[in-house]
């Protein structure tokens, strides 16, 4: 009995097809799309509380969340205060059901410690939805004290900074796309020695200061450079520590 094959006319997307033993398509229908590529859809690096709403076609989001940095400690007698701790920094893989709209908070960076020798403030925690938390870094001590301990994570998929020692968190400091922004004039034009070359205890090249990273601990306060010391007075005034940076958030969704 010869088999009658009907033509399968029409347009199908992400088609499910059936092919017979002769290589002919004998059935076709519109199928279900697979997971899309991840596309960055959201970023923010300023403290406050608001709501994130996923794109309508999203079934999964990747969240990079960072707590706020602690403030640097105040200087004394021409010596630096200590650096504030970095905010905890983690990656969270989250399947979502539509519609998906959740609150999030980005912590405020800690203020710097006053001169002479005061401790900087701790950074506040960043949180996403009800259970994902990146705590802020501790404040840096005054001159002769200790650097601030970085914050810890809760419920992360992968931890970049999670209560590491300060030195370890420096090695793992991750300038992820969207986590950094152009520095502002206050920091790039500061007149005091070393501030513009320094994040934490590490001296950097001037060009590195084009970027500032959300959740980074503040630099300890220092003394003015020699050009600003009053000749013949022994002047060596202490300075405030720098504030930590606010927490930050970057989100990717599978809509590509």
């Amino acid at each position, binding site marked *: 009995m010869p088999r009658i094959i009907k033509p399968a006319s029409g347009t199908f997307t992400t088609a499910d097809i059936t092919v017979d033993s002769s290589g002919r398509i004998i059935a076709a229908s519109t199928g279900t799309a697979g997971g899309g590529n991840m596309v960055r859809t959201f970023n923010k690096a300023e403290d406050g509380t608001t709501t994130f709403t996923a794109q309508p076609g999203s079934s999964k989001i990747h969240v990079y969340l960072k707590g706020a940095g602690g403030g640097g400690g105040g200087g004394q007698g021409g010596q630096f205060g200590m650096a504030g701790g970095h905010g905890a920094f983690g990656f969270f893989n989250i399947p979502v059901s539509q519609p998906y709209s959740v609150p999030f*908070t980005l912590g405020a960076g800690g203020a710097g410690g006053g001169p002479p020798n005061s401790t900087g403030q701790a950074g506040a925690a960043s949180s996403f939805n009800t259970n994902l938390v990146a*705590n802020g870094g501790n404040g840096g001590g005054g001159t002769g004290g200790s650097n601030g301990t970085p914050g810890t994570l809760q419920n992360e998929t992968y931890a970049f900074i999670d209560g590491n020692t300060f030195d370890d968190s420096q090695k793992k400091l991750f300038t992820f796309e969207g986590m950094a922004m152009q520095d502002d004039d206050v920091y790039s034009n500061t*007149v*005091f020695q070393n501030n513009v070359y320094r994040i934490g205890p590490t001296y950097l090249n001037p060009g590195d200061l084009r970027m500032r990273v959300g959740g980074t601990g503040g630099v300890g306060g220092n003394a003015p450079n020699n050009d600003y010391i009053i000749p013949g007075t*022994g*002047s060596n005034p202490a300075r405030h520590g720098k504030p930590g940076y606010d927490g930050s958030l970057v989100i990717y969704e599978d809509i590509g």
Partner: protein
Amino acid sequence: MAYLVFKNEEGLTRSDQTLIRAAKTDEDVQIIHGGKSDTVNTVEITDAEYDAYLKSDVTLTITADSYSFENNPLPAESDVNETELLTKESFEADLQEYKQALTSVFHKRSTHSQIGKVTSAIDFLTNLDTSSISYPTENIDNKCRRADKYVNLHCI
């Protein structure tokens, strides 16, 4: 009733390095944690202690999970140690940095209970005629305290 607001992490004790900031009201505390109250723990202080700390009339010491405020008298301008005096350039740089910090707070925490004091301090700094000051001079903190315009950023 005002508060000292600390980080709340497992195994962490209260110390000056885990203090986030002082807050005057429950709403000010809410600004800090954004609705996730389990990220902080608080210690009650009196309104008078908060007000004095805001103006830097006292300093705060936290040791072994306890706190104390100590008087922080403002020295007469003539008594400021000469090693702490600033050139015009240094003073103006400090002024701009402090003003920028206050302006940032003003924009980001407009509902804070002490926002009126922040506005008043910004106005004072904006109108301060640095060309009329004799240099070297004391730091901007002292200048603001003398005019009763100082706002401690650890309280906002």
